[in-house]
């Protein structure tokens, strides 16, 4: 699956688009972490909660559950929400 990485996390990947696989969102994030160590904990805490300013969109649909199943193809967009003035 093609994965779009937000600019704030491209220091890990070195690219805006990468490939990662997984039967669920959590599995895909663990695959990303295997490729780019440390990146998962910046997005998901030790309770498997998605961090406050991180959003995941699968083919345009926002995902809220790390156990959400993922299809074999498609695109996952990781979006970093900014807050503040």
């Amino acid at each position, binding site marked *: 699956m093609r994965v779009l990485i937000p600019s704030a*996390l491209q220091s890990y990947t070195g690219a805006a688009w990468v490939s990662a696989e997984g039967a669920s969102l959590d599995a895909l994030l663990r695959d990303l972490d295997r490729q780019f*160590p*440390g990146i998962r*904990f910046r997005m998901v*805490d*030790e309770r498997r909660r998605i961090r406050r300013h*991180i959003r995941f969109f699968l083919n345009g649909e926002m995902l809220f559950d790390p156990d959400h199943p993922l299809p074999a193809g498609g695109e996952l967009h990781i979006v*970093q929400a*900014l807050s503040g003035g």
Partner: protein
Amino acid sequence: MSTGSGERGQLLLLAATRKGAWIYHGDSERRSWQVDGPHFLGHIIHHLVLDPRDGRTLLAAASTGHLGPTIFRSTDLGRSWQEAVRPPAFGPSINGLEARAVDHTFWLTPGHADQPGVWYAGTSPQGLFRSEDGGRNWAPFSCINDDAQYRRWFGTVQDGTPDGPKLHSIIVDPRDAQHLYFAMSGGGVHESLDGGRSFAPLVDGMEVVAGFDAADVTFHDPHCLRLCPSNPDRLYQQNHCGIYRLDRPGRRWQRIGRNMPAEVGDIGFPLVLHPRDDNTLWVFPMDGSDVWPRTSPGGQPASMSRVTAVPAGSVRASACRPARPGGQSSARR
């Protein structure tokens, strides 16, 4: 802000800010400084600490406004950085206690000189962690983080500073690697004599906000704890309720801040101890009236006070201000 001596003996000032980190390299006379930075521009750097055991390893506790917390490590005085493999993170829920998540690492302390590679970390919400490999991997102290009594003393996430309660001021006795102290705001001062397998509160003599029970560790709010470099049996503490001194093996804190000038008071955050004189320290009182976090009594520019604790137990206090733009300075006694 922390200080250190590089491997060639050069003086370093390490500034950790909400916008990144800077390293100032001083000459031997401290007259000129070379600025190195920013490192991690835009990141919140909660603490930046040099390892005194080699003079070149730096650890930085980092987070951002929109990403999770982590630790960065440099072995070449900041020329290159590597991220921790396993940053401080709480374990799964045990003992029927609610699972928690580290918001940020607030404090870093190098281990004893005889334990190269050992570091300690304090987090928000309050947690204690240890690394044995120079900061690459961090393990939680379950005896603190997952203990029902400590959980009660932690209070809630609202019982602390605006960005969360913190475990801070982790101290290793330079004479004994097994002897540790830490403080929590809120939740008191704690001591271990067995290398962290167990801890016990050390709060006798400390005052709490009027109307609360000083016998309840929950209500104690130490802001800063320091061990005298020249006398490891002497501790000083800046607390929400005063400035204190403790001479070990005694267990009762003495409130020495009452002799501060009344118009200044003895509430503040930082403490700086004299490197050779265990009777002299500097405190930075704060305006406790309209704007709490402001370190400027009476709305004046940053003030500095010196407290001299004479051996007889009485205390002399003086307050002075840094030079004004016209080059004058003033002092009160």
